[in-house]
């Protein structure tokens, strides 16, 4: 028991780190769902592409000798910006090719297309890596190897970077959605597409912008993920995407604040169950069941509070 209490701060720090990453990826799901009512299944793969691009940028900089003497913050910023630009454009491209032609199809058709995009991206990245490095996993340079000792726990600096960057991204997004002209247009389109278009809002452009922002946030999280866990492979996006989607549903899908809270909550729950499930059941059920817990939360939320923690209940109309 004492031992369990002793590791608690460490477990919470891990959970928060994971949770903030879920939160930023969940934002991508929630923004697209808020506007198109469509689960962008390939969003997890955008995150994965972002992780690879960011890591490749750092590796190339390292190979060119640019990392020595360079402030690690600037290196991270460069990786983040390049990754965000490319994944943002990738998201817009996917929307243009695979989703826009299907906007008026039955709802399952774009979902099937999205599953296809998701598999395609996994294999394309695996190919590119295999051609380039002859292996499909990738280990990048760690920019922040240090640890911050605060007495009860040791916080890795990289975890702190993840949390701070995630918070900054969320604040910027909140500001953008609530205060800028384009943000207001996005909210208008989410509320009513046809009325918004009558108010001279270019709906197609707003949807493109939504994909651009959502995907670049996903890509940025990918870079943070790679920094935090070291080694990445083309299949990291799938499970993380599922969890982030769970977080979005938990908070209330379509709701930006809900996605943030849901993500952090899910990360902490997962970390707690990973650490304590084994000791609490005397080893009968170990930490390998943490994914089961996460998915069970998704199912329970959908059953008992489908609108999520912050969402509003919607009555179905004929």
């Amino acid at each position, binding site marked *: 028991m004492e031992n369990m209490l002793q590791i608690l701060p460490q477990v919470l720090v891990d959970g928060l780190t994971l949770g903030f990453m879920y939160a930023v990826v969940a934002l991508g799901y929630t923004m697209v769902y808020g506007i198109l009512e469509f689960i962008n299944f390939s969003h997890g793969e955008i995150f994965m592409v972002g992780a690879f691009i960011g890591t490749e940028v750092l590796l190339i900089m390292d190979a060119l000798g640019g990392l020595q003497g360079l402030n690690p913050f600037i290196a991270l910023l460069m990786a983040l910006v390049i990754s965000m630009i490319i994944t943002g454009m990738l998201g817009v491209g996917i929307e243009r090719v695979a989703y826009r*032609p299907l906007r008026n199809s*039955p709802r399952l058709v774009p979902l099937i297309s999205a599953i*296809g995009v998701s598999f395609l991206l*996994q294999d394309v990245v695996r190919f590119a890596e295999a051609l380039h490095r002859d292996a499909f996993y990738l280990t990048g340079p760690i920019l922040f190897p240090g640890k911050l000792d605060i007495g009860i726990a040791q916080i890795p600096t990289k975890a702190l970077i993840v949390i701070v960057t995630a918070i900054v991204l969320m604040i910027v997004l909140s500001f953008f959605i609530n205060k800028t002209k384009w943000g207001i247009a996005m909210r208008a389109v989410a509320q009513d597409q046809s009325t918004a278009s009558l108010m001279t809002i270019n709906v197609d452009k707003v949807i493109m912008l939504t994909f651009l922002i959502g995907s670049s946030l996903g890509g940025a999280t990918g870079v943070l993920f790679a920094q935090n866990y070291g080694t990445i492979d083309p299949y990291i996006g799938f499970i993380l995407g*599922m969890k982030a989607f769970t977080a979005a549903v938990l908070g209330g899908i379509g709701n930006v604040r809900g996605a943030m809270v849901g993500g952090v909550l899910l990360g902490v729950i997962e970390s707690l169950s990973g650490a304590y499930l084994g000791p609490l059941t005397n080893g009968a059920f170990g930490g390998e069941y943490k994914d089961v817990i996460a998915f069970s939360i*998704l199912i329970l939320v959908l059953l008992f509070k*489908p609108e999520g923690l912050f969402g509003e209940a919607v009555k179905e109309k004929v």
Partner: protein
Amino acid sequence: MGTFRNLMAKEQPIPLLLTLAWIAACSVALWVLKDSVTSFVGLILSVLIIYYTNANKWLRMALGGLVLLVIIPYLAGGNSYYMEVATNIGIYVAMALGLNIVVGFAGLLDLGYVAFFAAGAYAYGIFATAQANEFIPGDLFPLGGEWFWAFLIVGLLVAAVFGILLGLPVLRVKGDYLAIVTLGFGEIVRIIFNNLDKPVNITNGPQGLSSITPPSLIGETFSDAFHFYFIVLVVIFFVVWANLKLEHSKLGRAWIAIREDELAAQSMGISLLNTKLTAFATGASFAGVVGVIFAAKQTFIDPTSFTLMESIGILVMVILGGSGSIPGVILGATFVTLLQVQLLKELSNYLHELSQAGILSLPSQLDPSKLQRLVFGVLLILAALYRPNGLIPSRRKKEDIGAIKSHAHAEQKQGILAKLTGRKNVS
């Protein structure tokens, strides 16, 4: 039988003579060139050609039976690789037809379908190995091969119960949420099978179950692909028959009504949850039976056989072939399985030969046999964009409006209509 004739309706039939010539050509080619993959694939495709042939249905069924029961076993029976391919095609056809009930008829996108397949496979696997001794006292296991036949039913029931248990909570959510939730459930089932070696060792965890007893009947052991080919054929026959019967039954029409519009169906008195549950349970039960056969055929199962990739693969077969269309789904399953087990492998061998000859060098990651995800991805996107209804779109039986109007019951007026028109309601 009218439903059957209608299903077989087509616009441009192929002349009978051409079909016979095709079958003869492929048979002779396979007989002369024992290893010709092309002629074997041609022979399998002849079933599709027979389907489009201009002849009455009994002749077509006889021809199809001849090809599947006589020509293929006789010409390719000696080649265990061909029989293996044919058996695999059969297994996936049966599974895809099961998923077709859930996705095609009832319109419920189930991304965790492989969980039911796993349930059937593990049901047989656990009791047909010494594994069951771990939690049932008395050293009764492994069961003998005669039990295989009983386990076809057990697998069906286990999977159906699984379907109902999973369906009860899951089916309350709608549309694309359902897809994600079933996906989550599929993962949960896989993780549980992977970890259920403690506290009580039920599934033997990631090591899986090996040396599963092959089926036997009256002292004869069925252990090679040649035998399984026939077992699978019998199962497909029943699955297709059940699909045809269900499609135009009251239940089948209720499924399709739910697919088209849940609210409208509900207001017509269809119980949403019950109808969806039967769809889930029926689809699951097919997968359960196939799971038992799969376990017996492989003699080894472990959780890696039941990943999301399998679920997606079966979904690709249904969507590509034509969701809701029985001939379409059979075509889709055949095509995708051939692509996976034969064409990609052939291409990969060919490239391998090239690289050994030093003509080109490819990293092992680019091996076409590892291309599965890419191929599935591209197929799904193309299908969604250009053929959302599949290669052979499903067709509803056209009701003869004139016949309905002139029917005696059409004259009856009930409720307020009877009062307004003054006619008595004759029951």
